[in-house]
Structures are given as C-alpha cells and as structure tokens.
C-alpha cells in the first residue's frame, strides 16, 4: 500500500528557555486542526499532548523541532530535541516525578504529570532518548468512530 500523503504538514523550531513564546507551536496546530474541521474532543487530545511536549522542550532542552502531519483520519506529531535526555524513562513516567527546577514549578509546570498527560491523550507514544544528546517524542492520534 503506498504511503498516504498528509493533508497538511507543519514544521517549527522550539527554543529552549523561551517562555514568552512557549505554546505558540501548539496554538498554531490547534488552529490548523480547527480549520480542518476535526471534532473538538479530538483536537483537545492532540493539543494537550502537543503542548505538554512543547513545554518539555522549553523547560528542559536547548532547542527542538516540532513536526506535525495531518491526515484525513489521524495526526502524527514528532518533537525532536537537543537536550539533556531522560536518564530513567520509567521513573519519568511516574506521576509526580519531576526534575524541573523551582522556577518552573512556580509557573505551574514541572509537577511531574506531563508525560502521563501525553500518554493519556495519545493513541501511540514512543520516546527515544539519549542522555546528554536529546529526546525524540513521537505521538499518533487516531480519529475513532466515536469521533473523539
């Protein structure tokens, strides 16, 4: 079966530490999905997971690239960063576990629920991480028959 071409593709840079612009990329993806006419509950899943992933890059990494491919019945998101990597992925998935510094926690983030939110909102989540190199997060979201 030939590879289906995406309806829309987007690729954006994310700057580590830039809290003023943090959220811009997910906001843009949200607008794209709304214009494409996906159901709100589906968009919400994609946007929450994307925003958590975007925040992780801003909080922890030096820079990252956000790529989204929108198909008629699914959305594929990849976030590839250059950063510290995640030494213990299993631990990182534990709710409440966080390595975020205090100033991040004061902003309301870094409470240790980002990865679990990403897992809950996506249908497939794959994380490839190398310590002191970076982390790649790949997420797929399928439009289910119940439209959510």
């Amino acid at each position, binding site marked *: 079966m030939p590879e289906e071409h995406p309806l829309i593709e987007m690729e954006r840079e994310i700057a580590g530490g830039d809290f003023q612009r943090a*959220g811009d990329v997910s906001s843009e993806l*949200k607008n794209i999905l709304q214009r494409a006419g996906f159901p709100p509950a589906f968009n919400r899943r994609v*946007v*929450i997971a994307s*925003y958590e992933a975007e925040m992780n890059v801003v909080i922890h990494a030096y820079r990252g690239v956000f790529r989204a491919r929108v198909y008629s019945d699914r959305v594929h998101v990849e976030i590839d960063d250059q950063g510290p990597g995640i030494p213990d992925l299993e631990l990182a998935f534990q709710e409440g576990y966080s390595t975020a510094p205090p100033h991040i926690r004061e*902003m*309301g983030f870094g*409470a240790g*629920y980002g990865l679990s*939110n990403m897992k809950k909102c996506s249908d497939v989540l794959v994380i490839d991480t190398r310590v002191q190199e970076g982390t790649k997060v790949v997420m797929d979201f399928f439009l289910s028959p119940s439209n959510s």
Partner: protein
Amino acid sequence: MTLREIKEILEAEVLVGEEFLDREIWYACGSDLLSDVLAFAKEHALLLTGLTNSQVIRTAEMIDLLGIVFVRGKRPEHSTIELAALKGIPLLTTRLPMYESCGRLYLKGLKGCSEFGSNA
C-alpha cells in the same frame, strides 16, 4: 451561571474581557498545577488560580477555558493581560482566597469538572 454572576458572587474586578461577561459557565476548577488543569478541565469551564504568568493564558487557550479568576487579589503583568485580550479570554481578580472563592461558587450551584456530564 454567567461570568457576570460569578463576578458578583466573588466581588471580583474584570481585568480584561468585559464583553464576554454573558458567557455561560458550566463547570469550574481551582488549581495551581497547569498539567492538572490540562488533564481535568472540561468544556465551558472556568479556572480559579493563584498563578498569573502567561502560561496560564496559554493553558486556557489550549483547552478553550471560558475565563480565568485570579484569587487572593493577584494581578498578572500587563503582557499577560494583553495575551488574554488577544486570545479572547476574560480575566477577573478577586480579593477572596482560593478556598472561599471555590466555596462561594459551589454553594451557588456551579459544579466541579469531575461532575461533568451530570445535570449542569
């Protein structure tokens, strides 16, 4: 309950979004953890929070929150208010602390997000 009623109940001041006070709010959630807000807030919801940074506005934008109330007299910076104006998110501030703000609204019948789906 409308945002206008919420403003009265909390004796709140509108920082931006006066034109949105007729919005109908079905649920509220009180939290200072944005990942919790992302995970649990439902449609037609209001957020009560002590956080005033721009990420609160971003979080509200991502999940279509209908408004934000800052508790205990907190006020965001001008840039945060501007971002909310741009995104069409009304901001209110009340002198009441978190517990009392939530309590007053709950007593008046505004449900919590975990009660989503029950008669609003």
